[in-house]
Structure formats: C-alpha cells, structure tokens
C-alpha cells in the first residue's frame, strides 16, 4: 500500500472509531437545519425561499466544526513529526488528510441533505440539485478549511480562531453555491453558470489548499 492511501485509510478508520467525529458533522448539520423551521415559523413559502441558503450555512458550519482537530490531534501525540519525515511530500500528506476528512464528514452531509430538504419545504425534484451543489462545493470548504486547521495547529483553543480565519475565505463558495441551488429551485436564472463556477472554486482550492496548509505547518514547527 502506498503512503498516500494508507494515510487516507488510517484517518477514515480513526474517524469512525471511538472519539472520532465521522457522523458528528452530519448530526450537527441535521440539528442546525432542524432548528430553522422552529425559528422561522410555519411560513412554507418563506422556508422554501431561504431553504438552500440555510442548508449551505449548515454545511459550512459543520464542515468547519469538524476540521479544527484535523492537525491538532496529530500534533499533540507526536504523529505530525513522523508524518513530515516520510518521503511523501507534505503537500500530499495534508491532501490525503483532507480527502479522508471530506469522505467521512462532508459526504454523509451531502447524503442526508434530501431528507432535510423536506423540512424546509424544498420540492423533491429540486432536492437533487441542492445536494449536487453541496457535493460540488463541500470539497472547497474542506480544502480552504485545511489552511485554517494548519495555521491554528499549535494553539490550544484554535477552533474559534480557525473559524474567524476561514469563514471570510468561503464567501465566494457560499455565494455561488446558494446561487446555483436557488436557480434550481425558484429560477429564473440558469443553473449552469453558478454551478460551473462552484466547481471551479473547488478545483482551485484543491490545488492551492494543500500548498498553503503545508507551508503553514512548516512555519508552525518553528
């Protein structure tokens, strides 16, 4: 087995074991989105209109929530030292961790989205599109969050700082993600353009995130 796949498998295994956070993100997402109908009241039209935005905010928060221990736990038990001493470049190491994190945290969230859509009065036909925007957009949330997780690795309570650092960077993803989801539900703008930009944002963060995170980790070792 190569170093890259063995790291992905280890991180996935860790997150489904005791103390891992595999389904926490999805549960948090579920709880947050479930609160919204209670807060807004039984105005079905309003719910349908703001539904996609609420789903996206929920996805954003739960992705970040689970990210803050991504490097911190490896740093605390000395694993991070050994991870940097492999022949695998640090950029690929952090990318492997991000992929494992996306698979265990963000993917369950995409899968339960159609169920949550029912609560927000989103039509069944449009639900697939909303889930599709999350599928295309959450990788960029993970890979942008990766940078924040790497920056805050040596801080004891890095979680809040990480959210402050990362949330502004996710604004474009949020804008185009919600725009694409709204286009699918209420129209009249076409679904294609915002969705394509969303995919582009994901691809760009896929390339930039690991380099920035690896650089941040190297600085943090000083």
């Amino acid at each position, binding site marked *: *087995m*190569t*170093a890259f796949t*063995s*790291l992905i498998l*280890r991180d996935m*295994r*860790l997150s489904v*074991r*005791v*103390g*891992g956070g595999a389904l926490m993100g999805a549960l948090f997402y579920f709880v947050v989105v479930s609160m919204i109908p209670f807060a807004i009241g039984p105005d079905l039209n309003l719910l349908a209109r703001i539904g996609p935005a609420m789903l996206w905010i929920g996805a954003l928060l739960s992705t970040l929530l689970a990210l803050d221990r991504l490097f911190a736990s490896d740093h*605390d*038990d*000395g*694993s991070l*030292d*050994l*991870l*940097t*001493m*492999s*022949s*695998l470049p640090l950029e690929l190491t952090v990318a492997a961790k991000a992929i494992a994190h996306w698979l265990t945290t963000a993917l369950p969230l995409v899968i339960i989205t159609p169920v949550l859509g029912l609560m927000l009065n989103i039509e069944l036909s449009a639900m697939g599109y909303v889930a599709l925007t999350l599928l295309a957009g959450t990788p960029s949330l993970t890979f942008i969050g990766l940078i924040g997780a790497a920056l805050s690795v040596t801080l004891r309570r890095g979680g809040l700082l990480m959210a402050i650092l990362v949330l502004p960077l996710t604004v474009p993803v949020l804008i185009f993600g919600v725009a694409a989801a709204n286009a699918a539900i209420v129209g009249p703008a076409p679904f294609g353009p915002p969705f394509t930009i969303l995919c582009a944002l994901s691809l760009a963060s896929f390339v930039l995130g690991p380099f920035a995170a690896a650089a941040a980790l190297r600085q943090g*070792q*000083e």
Partner: protein
Amino acid sequence: MKTDRMQLICDSLACERGGRQVFAGVNFTVSAGEAMVVTGRNGAGKSTLLRVIAGLLRAAQGQVTLTGLAGAADEASLPEQAHYLGHLDAAKPSLTVRENLTFWADFLGASGDPAIDTALEAVELDTLADLPAAYLSAGQKRRLSIARLLAVKRPVWLLDEPTSALDAPSQARLTSFMCEHLAGGGFIVAATHGPIGLDAPRELRMGAAG
C-alpha cells in the same frame, strides 16, 4: 545497502528558539556503525539538536548532511533516512497496536513486506496486538514506538531519552536492538541522562560553556 562510507556530518550547527540561542557551533561526524550520546543539563538543547537533525526544526546556521548513501537513495534527504523516537509515542488510542504499527510501516515506506509480527514479537507486544493502544501503559507505548524502528529499516536512529518509562528487561532489549542496528552499519544519535547500555559510545556534551 552499502554503508561503509556513509557519514552523518554536522557542520557548525546553530539553533535559535523564540529569539534565544539554544546552541551554536556544534560540529561532529558520525560514521556508519557508530553511536553518539548527547549529554548535558536540562535545557542544554539535546532534544532541539535531535529535532534539527530530524528536519523538524530549522537550523539558524550550519547544516546536517548524510553522505555516501548508495544508489538511488542518494537523492533522499536526511529526514527520510532517519527514525525519530521522541517524547511522544505517536500512537493513536483508538487503533489497535497492530494497526498503529502497520500504518507507520506503510506510511514511512517499508520496502517489501513490512515485518510487523516480527517487530511486535521483538518488543513483546505480540500478545497485545489486537488491543486498542489506549489501554497500553507508558512503557508499552514506548515499546510500540521502538517496534517502528524495527519494522521500517532506516539507517539513522535519533533517540530522545529512549529508555524513559522502560523497565530493566526492556532496556536490555533496546540495547540489543541498538547493537544490531550498529552492527548492520546504522547510526545512532541518542540524547540521554543515564547510560543506555552501549559500550564506549562517543559523547557530545551540550552547553558545557554555560
């Protein structure tokens, strides 16, 4: 692996942490099959020196090089040729002993079939192989770390207080592992306060000046 002419050369190394100079002008050369013990009072920079050699800290001045590596490995940098046994054992509590070791063997690039079971037997953890690492004692975790050095062959061993938490039989076993490693043409740089059982290792005293 042809290791006859391999040398670990440390050239006027200096390191600063938090604006304070930890050490400066550290020079030494270790040849294949040699062990060097780094001694000195607390805070003299023993651990820092090991971390600089392992590439985990940047040197303010000077450099460490590994010369004379045979063949394709020539390109590899020193951290990829070194094992670092630090104060922390890098064991994930929720993974079993075997899973922990298998991961590090895969990740650190064991060539061929990593000898997981042999390594676990050598440190007498084979009966606990399927126990989550959370239930290990400090000494057992340390032995799991040592098993990593055996499962993945790397010429340079950087050991920071390797005997801490180990009982007498385990210390004796560690000594025999180190002797085998040296006999196979490996290097050992160990930071320690007490004797580690090797006969006549070279000694580097840190912070002698003050």
